[in-house]
């Protein structure tokens, strides 16, 4: 039985797809057979972030409508073994994802995968609700910014009331906070909510803090999950987050401003 992880946030543009790509790749790198599913019907983008946009033939909705088999639609990642991508459909029909259809696909994947990562669309509409309904674990991606934190709290409310686990009376979905686009210098200057502030408000366990980094845009330009760039802080921070997701106790890094020498401080240099 695969574990189903939903990467969700409520607000758009906070880094759900980037995080889904990184977490999925990180799990596959550790030897787990992993599938990443793009739930954003109509606005497919996971394929671009993973660099497999030209290899899409069939998609999630084709599988649900039985126009293709799951094996035909799954794209095997070229860089990372054990990793597969199921792209979203570009149809404009919002109701293309049916509850039974999604369940059937997840059941079939569950048989020979270890992890299924569901990349949720933004918002709290049907697509987002479908992405989190069958989840065992939720990664709530949040920016240290008021609207993102508020929307994350809304999503937490949905995770606590509208999931298969709640309805079946099972243990609730495990919730994890992933803070992205974190800028320690601005936090120190009192211009940005700190990790502690966001933890205080949302009150769920922290799984990782991804520093704001040029590497993220560079990686998406190239269609490569940023976790593969282990030279960068963002890549390392995602690796740490994956380790914590698997239960390892890893200390948080990149939370503080790099210490500067006395003269640099005096001169106000960067």
């Amino acid at each position, binding site marked *: 039985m695969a574990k189903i992880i939903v990467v969700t946030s409520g607000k758009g543009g906070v880094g759900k797809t980037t995080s889904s790509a990184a977490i999925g790749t990180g799990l596959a790198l550790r030897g787990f057979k992993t599938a990443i599913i793009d739930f954003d019907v109509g606005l497919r983008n996971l394929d671009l972030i993973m660099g497999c946009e030209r290899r899409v033939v069939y998609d999630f909705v084709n599988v649900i409508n039985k126009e293709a088999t799951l094996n035909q639609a799954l794209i095997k990642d070229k860089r990372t073994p054990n990793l597969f991508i199921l792209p979203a459909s570009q149809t404009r029909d919002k109701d293309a994802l049916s509850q039974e259809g999604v369940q059937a696909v997840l059941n079939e994947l569950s048989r020979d995968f270890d992890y299924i990562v569901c990349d949720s669309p933004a918002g709290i509409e049907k697509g987002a609700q479908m992405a989190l309904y069958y989840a065992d674990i939720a990664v709530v991606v949040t920016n240290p910014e*008021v609207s993102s934190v508020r929307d994350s709290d*809304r999503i937490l409310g949905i995770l606590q009331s509208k999931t298969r686990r709640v309805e079946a009376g099972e243990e609730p979905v495990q919730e994890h906070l992933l803070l992205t686009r974190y800028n320690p210098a601005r936090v*120190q200057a009192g*211009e940005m*909510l700190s990790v502690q502030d966001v933890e205080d*408000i949302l009150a769920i366990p922290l799984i990782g803090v991804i520093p704001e980094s040029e590497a993220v845009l560079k990686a998406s330009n190239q269609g490569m999950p940023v976790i593969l760039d282990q030279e960068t802080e963002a890549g390392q921070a995602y690796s740490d987050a994956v380790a914590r997701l698997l239960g390892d106790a890893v200390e948080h890094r990149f939370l503080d401003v790099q210490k500067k020498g006395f003269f640099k*401080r005096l001169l*106000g240099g960067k």
Partner: protein
Amino acid sequence: MSIFDYFRSKSKNTSASVAKERLQIIVAHERGQRQQPDYLPLMQQEILDVIRKYVPIDQDSVNIQLENNDHCSVLELNVTLPDR
């Protein structure tokens, strides 16, 4: 941060602390609403209409709260009547 900023920016009311305070208030408020049953706003409106048949009051003078304790829920109804 240069040496000049060092003396200036030690005030407590940073924009981040304002953000945190605003978030704590709105999130607490929205969490409270989340636990309410869906029928509560409509019920509030109907109760208001009944009272209005007898006393002229406005929308804000009725306050309904549902509190869930361990084994029972308490519906608290607070109506402010105008001065006579």
